[in-house]
């Protein structure tokens, strides 16, 4: 217990002392995770709507594949993206490898199927009366989908939170594609891995607590945003 307490004290000390390594790792973690989550949201959610609203052969298989991709190991993503970004890879000439952009690409690959699959699951369960009601009031197909998105925004935000949590806490992609370069691609999770390998368990746990603190703060912000519109129950006439 004393060991954990020391770690907790060190975490507070690291935060309050504005430790340069911790601050920089936190900055990289937040920036990379936010950017990849935003990209994943703007790609995953529209893809989910397309999958859900269009009937095509292989739709069920595609949904099953998406669900499977939610369990994709981060090291595997790191490995596959590495193959594309390394010097001999198709995109090697862009020089993305061992930059935060490589980490963002890997994390987008990680989070997009997750956000997409969770949004598809929501859309599959939602009553299409919402969309049809909008159409009866003069909405175009696109406007009716926006109206539907507005109605299920709490569930969409939940999917985005899940995506953010997954990329913020991953380590495999960051190490393989970022290279753990100090003050450049080293983030909180790769720092934890490094400190633990050095035997600095207390510092590792302290960084883990800082990671949890950030994750908690961000989740609270999301909850406050989604909580404003949360109304339980359904609003069907005569239901």
């Amino acid at each position, binding site marked *: 217990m004393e060991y954990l307490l020391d770690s907790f004290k060190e975490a507070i000390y690291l935060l309050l002392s504005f430790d340069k390594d911790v601050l920089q790792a936190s900055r990289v973690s937040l920036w990379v995770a936010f950017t990849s989550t935003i990209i994943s949201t703007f790609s995953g959610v529209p893809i989910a709507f397309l999958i859900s609203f269009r009937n095509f052969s292989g739709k069920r298989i595609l949904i099953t594949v998406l669900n499977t991709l939610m369990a994709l190991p981060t090291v595997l993503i790191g490995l596959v993206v590495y193959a594309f970004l390394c010097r001999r890879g198709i995109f090697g000439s862009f020089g993305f490898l061992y930059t935060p952009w490589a980490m963002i690409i890997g994390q987008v690959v990680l989070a997009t199927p997750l956000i997409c699959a969770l949004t598809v699951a929501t859309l599959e369960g939602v009553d299409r009366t919402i969309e049809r009601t*909008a159409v009866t*009031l003069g909405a175009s197909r696109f406007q009716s989908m926006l109206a539907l998105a*507005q*109605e299920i925004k709490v569930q969409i935000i939940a999917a985005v939170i899940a995506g953010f949590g997954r990329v913020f806490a991953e380590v495999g992609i960051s190490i393989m594609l970022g290279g753990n370069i100090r003050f450049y691609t080293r983030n909180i999770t790769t720092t934890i891995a490094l400190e633990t390998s050095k035997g600095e368990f207390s510092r590792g746990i302290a960084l883990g607590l800082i990671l949890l603190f950030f994750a908690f703060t961000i989740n609270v912000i999301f909850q406050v945003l989604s909580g404003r*519109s949360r109304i339980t129950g359904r609003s*069907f*006439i*005569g239901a």
Partner: protein
Amino acid sequence: MCLYELRDVRKCYGELIALDIPLLRLKNGYFYVIYGPNAAGKTTLLNLLAFLDSPSSGEVILTNENLGRKDITMLMQNPYLFRTTVLKNVIFGLKYRSIRKKEQEKLAKSIMEELGIWRLKDESVMKLSGGERKKVSIARALVLDTRVLILDEPTAHLDRNEADLIEEIIEKRAGKGGKSIIMTTHDLNQAFRLTDNVIFMNEGKVVNTQLWNIFKANLTDGSEGTKNAFIKNGFVIKVVTDVTGQRRIAIDPRNVIISRNCMVSSALNSFRGKIINIGKINNFIKLNVDTGVEFSSFITEDSFKKLSLKPGEEVFVTFKASSVEVF
């Protein structure tokens, strides 16, 4: 001028044929009420007219070239209220019509005051009662003031006073500025109260008879040229038809003759019964007679006075085998 033309329209859900209309023309500027029992295909028809669904086969044509998608509004039977305030729900459709915000509120206020729900404008729809929700959805449809208004059971789930108010508001709009209204109901009295253009539907088809005196019957061979329709408890009606087996039959109440004594006539169906109810529909007196099976009959006021009928009195119900329609 024609508004809609439906040609060979069928709507199927798997094996089930929910709608089968060879030809139906609806005129521009008219108020139509579609009447029929549950599962008659009323809502399916409205969904096609509102272009929410496409027919499985055939064509639904909006023949008036000046009208577009935004000239049609439909109030669904179970409309969804968006999870926001009452006012935002009412102005929802106005936002799609490039109407300025001030004007939106002005239009909403006018219709909401008419419906008595302006006081609820800032309430969340989740706090409303069933009747209030229905009124909000009606306001949301009416505020758009579209050329074609499609209403699926607008007075369902409302009490009598509220239903009267809605009827009054709808009636006021009917025929105003060439507006066309197509509404469904399963209340025949309401249908006739509102319009003369009542379309009768049963089992996915538009039928030419008025849907009283509908019975499930087992048709078997009878004497030459007729069939026996067994209703219940051995009650038999003579029918002219070629079909046999389980069917629905209907008798237009205008073809049901009421007499004090048994008539000697060519009509094959004559039953003795008791008057159990007397009412009024448009220019007719409606009598319900219990003969073991309940029949409705429409007679003129003159005939009613001449026969001086009262509830509980014994009368004879007579109609021809050829006036029985088989579905």
